[in-house]
């Protein structure tokens, strides 16, 4: 259509101001969509991380904290729980299975988790998926390790490679368990959960690493080699947490209360879904603030566009008169200015989407590494299209203000410009 082409050429002619306006709109849309994406993906990845587990039990602290360190490998436990308590609870009626978890060490930035073979049997993610081995299998030996897909890929490990676990969970560790190397016995397929970024070792192996340690430091003068450790009793004294599966969902609340009232030791049992909900409630305030802020940024971008078009109006009265003289109706002038706003909003939205994907492409590995949050490069979600449509619609709506002024001016001016 002639008017849209004119609008496009007119915008193109004012490259600098139009470009800056476009950039403002693009940035604001990228920000709005980015916030939405992070929010959605965070929820999605959290929600699909654990299923099939009825209760998570750890030392008494906060439900969210327990959930974060036991499942998401975020933060640390404040206290351990005794092996004895674990055994007793494992024998509670209605308890079908338990999987112990020992945390606190790391390997080149990835968390190391001591656990039992049952973990690979009972852990479920994305509702019903169980863990699958890409190669190898569960631990056969005390010093066997099973790697998450990302650990293997990023660090380039293959079956049979050996690795040394560092003490503590910092990025840089000064103390390593270099006297007890582990051998890669299995590599899991990708799950999109924190499992991908975990080095799993047997609980015995985990205990063996620490037999010559006390209170978080090696005992001076005591060196127990890997071979000597094999011969020792490697039942741990403490573990960090454990997962519980019950034979019936109905039993959940009863068992949970019993664990929470356990007299020997202060324990906390949480239902993963409930703790996740608490986490959402906590996060929703921040989410809403982010949404409001990014919406404001979009409004600012559109206001900038409005200002640019409005301030160009006076200088373009002559152009409007010329268009009128060649047969343009005042409605054409209105359409021209509407189209300019529309072209800017549309191009801005398109540039914003491109910008977002470029940012995702660049930021994805960083976000995954720093925050353990996987942001998949997917097509915009239906909700995103609505947001884009709403912004472009708002752009058009904003365009109607200068368009109406231009319409009025061109009616009053006619062919000559009267001030």
């Amino acid at each position: 259509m002639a008017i849209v082409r004119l609008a496009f050429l007119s915008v193109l002619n004012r490259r600098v101001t139009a470009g800056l306006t476009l950039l403002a709109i693009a940035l604001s849309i990228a920000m709005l969509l980015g916030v939405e994406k992070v929010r959605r993906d965070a929820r999605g990845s959290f929600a699909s991380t654990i299923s099939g587990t009825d209760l998570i039990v750890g030392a008494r602290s906060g439900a969210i904290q327990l959930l974060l360190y036991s499942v998401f490998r975020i933060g640390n436990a404040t206290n351990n729980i005794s092996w004895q308590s674990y055994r007793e609870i494992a024998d509670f009626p209605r308890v079908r299975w338990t999987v112990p978890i020992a945390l606190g060490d790391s390997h080149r930035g990835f968390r190391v988790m001591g656990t039992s073979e049952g973990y690979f049997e009972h852990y479920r993610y994305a509702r019903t998926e169980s863990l699958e081995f890409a190669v190898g299998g569960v631990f056969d030996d005390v010093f066997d390790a099973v790697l998450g897909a990302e650990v293997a890929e990023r660090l380039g490990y293959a079956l049979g490679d050996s690795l040394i676990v560092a003490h503590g969970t910092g990025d840089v560790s000064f103390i390593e368990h270099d006297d007890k190397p582990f051998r890669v016995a299995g590599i899991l397929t990708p799950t999109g959960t924190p499992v991908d970024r975990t080095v799993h070792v047997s609980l015995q192996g985990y205990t063996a690493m620490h037999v010559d340690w006390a209170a978080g430091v090696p005992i001076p003068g005591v060196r127990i080699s890997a071979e000597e450790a094999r011969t020792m009793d490697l039942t741990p004294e403490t573990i960090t947490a454990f997962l519980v599966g019950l034979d019936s969902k109905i039993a959940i609340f009863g068992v949970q209360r019993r664990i929470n009232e356990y007299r020997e030791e202060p324990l906390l049992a949480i239902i993963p879904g409930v703790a996740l909900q608490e986490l959402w409630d906590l996060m929703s305030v921040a989410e809403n603030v982010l949404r409001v802020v990014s919406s404001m940024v979009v409004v600012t971008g559109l206001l900038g566009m409005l200002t640019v078009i409005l301030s160009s109006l006076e200088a373009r009265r002559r152009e409007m008169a010329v268009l009128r003289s060649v047969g343009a109706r005042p409605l054409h002038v209105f359409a021209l200015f509407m189209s300019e706003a529309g072209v800017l909003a549309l191009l801005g939205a398109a540039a914003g989407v491109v910008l977002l994907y470029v940012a995702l492409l660049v930021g994805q590995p960083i976000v995954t590494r720093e925050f353990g949050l996987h942001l998949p490069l997917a097509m915009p979600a239906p909700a995103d299209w609505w947001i884009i449509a709403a912004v472009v619609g708002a752009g058009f709506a904003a365009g109607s203000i200068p368009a109406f002024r231009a319409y009025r001016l061109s009616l009053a001016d006619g062919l000559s410009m009267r001030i």
Partner: protein
Amino acid sequence: MSLEPEATVGIDRVRFAWRHGQRDVLDIVHFAVAAGERVFIEGPSGSGKSSLLSLIGGVTSPREGSIRILGADLVRMPSRHRDRFRADHVGFVFQMFNLVPYLSMVDNVTLPCRFSRRRRERAGAQTGTPEAEARRLLARLGLDRDGLFERTVTDLSIGQQQRVAAARALIGAPELIVADEPTSALDEGARGRFLELLSTQCDEAGASLLLASHDPRLGDAFDRRVSLPELNRAESDPNRRAA
């Protein structure tokens, strides 16, 4: 009914004020332009030239009276039809800033063809496409030097811009060309050449030419000259008279 061919412009008992309730700026008993005639309207600024040309263009409407262009009564037409009618039958040249800055020379010339199917078809009938016709007209107006077509219109000299505007007014052979002070931004030599070109092209196309200027010297080349202050019975601007 007269057996004579319909006049290109026929104005009868027209009164016009810019705003309702304001004093009239135009009060004309009769004014006509015959087909193919070249008429020079002379009058100082403020004598109502622009008002008269706006009325003939159908951009504004008189308070009373009739304005007929090619036999069609503009006053009775809805404004939508007047805009269409202007696009189809009238070409305009203004004093300056005639061109749309973001369009190329050729795009500026073919602009009326985007709003008028009649002129698009007529331009196409002449040389095949409106673009080819635009190039032909530009060449006729002496604008075919190397690389000129590719230049942005804002880089053109004022004389060149006015000739592009003339080509735009002429494309698609409208029956009436209206020029409002088209030469006042040009120097002496360019002025004469421009008038000659415009005049020749109107003759070739068989269009009537209505040119308004404050400069009486321009009138010599025209079939007829009309003094607007004599034609217009409305009081001239009281402020101007006092000055």
